[in-house]
């Protein structure tokens, strides 16, 4: 996935507005401004919930995929 710089800052601005991230200082490196962001407590909790939801979805998808696969034919050798 490629994220345009302007889109990235639009997203960062929204995340900051929602209190999920916070600016953690700026510095000038080789004449160019750098700003650092950190996850807030709320952001970490939100991210954790998202990860949990993704894991649940992945588990369900894996279980459904396994259930839909036909059982391996007897006597068929698998070479690895």
């Amino acid at each position: 996935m490629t994220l345009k710089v302007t889109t990235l800052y639009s997203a960062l601005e929204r995340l900051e507005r929602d209190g999920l991230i916070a600016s953690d200082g700026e510095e000038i490196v080789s004449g160019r401004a750098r700003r650092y962001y950190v996850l807030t407590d709320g952001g970490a909790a939100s991210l954790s919930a998202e990860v949990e939801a993704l894991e649940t979805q992945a588990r369900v998808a894996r279980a459904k995929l396994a259930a839909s696969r036909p059982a391996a034919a007897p006597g068929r050798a698998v070479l690895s």
Partner: protein
Amino acid sequence: MTDLDDRPFRRLLRWYPVSWRRRHGDVVLSTLLDAAEADGRRTPTAAEGRHAALHGTAARIGPGFALAASLTAVAAAVVVGILWAIGSTGDVTLILLAGVIPTLTTAAIVATARLRGLTSDGEALAILATASAAWALNVLAALAWSRAFDAGDDGRPAVGLAAAWMPLVAAAGAVGAVALGLAMTALLRRATRRSLGIRIAIGIAAGCVLAPLVGVTTLSPAAATLMAGGAVVAALSLWRSSTNREGLVVSVPGAGAVASVPRPPLVPDPRRRAASRGLAWLATTGGSVGVAYALTGAMWSPGAEDGTAAMAHGITLLMLSVLPLLSSFGLSRPQAPTRAGGRQRWGPLLLVASGVFSVALAYVDAPEAEAMQPGSYAGAVLFGGALAWAMASRGRRPRAVAVTASVAVGALFASFLGVMLAPVLVFGVPIAGALLALRTGPPPASPVAVSPGAPAPVL
């Protein structure tokens, strides 16, 4: 780092408002230059240009824009209220009602929705552009229909704009349906995991049903007033006193650890509770008699020569019943810890009480509309003042924002809704009184003091 000319990249930032550039400009420029160096480019890509145009334009519809648009809508609604009161319903009123107020309200609500994360930047701009076109067509359709109506009344053929009223109504409805469809599709994206096709189909269907209803509703001054008031409330929700330079809400990490201020006790003392409950029942009784008199007085009361007189007397009784209801409400709250807190609680209630008294006096002269007007309007202004005071003293917002918005909403209420709503709302007094009395409840049982270590009673 190379000697890359940063001017083409700086030009991209011109899409953004000054406040945004001040806050993010340097770091965005640096990141754009880093990305260009990594790709071996000397100019921004076309996609970067498009994205900057999109996000930069969207960044201009921020909290300040939402508040300014909604306050302008309120000012326009106040003008409509005044024009309506003096009996002027010409083209200016029509243009304000059918186009100006809805466009400004839409702008404020779209900006609020974008900042709340309910729409993306692209969706917000598309909805705003389409809705603005729809409202412009709505104005033309309303003016054309008005002229066609007048021509028909005079027995003249409809020519020019008047002759085009039907296609204009259809065009306004169609474009409005698209705008509503876009809004519905955007909102559904957050509410459901349905596919894009289904969401678009639901959006179009909802737009087709709602667009004509919305278009016709805007022609009512009451609807315009409610829309403008609602837009101010929505825009105000974006403002808190802990705002950054752009007036946006910022959550401070660890803010929850700030030492908590002890809260006043939630339950007022038993004597205040008892007084509150008694006054609430008094309001219920007085209000019930008022409703009964208003509806049936003409049948049995020698003082009510007809139904209109009975209704007027009943409304006067209901208005007077509001006074104990207000006192009951004030007493049902915990005692204000400071004198300023007391003023903030009782000041608006006192203004409402004065307004109610003023309208009650006006109803003594009912149904003589002209004789009633001074009392009705004085009441509406007092209600507006009460609303403004209550709004300004609630919430943590920058003082200038709170005062401006509160005065605007108060003026809006005073200009139109106050006169119309007061005689209708008073019919809810018996129910409000009963609810308040039941909520206050009987006094709690006297607590039994048990000292630690006291011996258990022997049974």
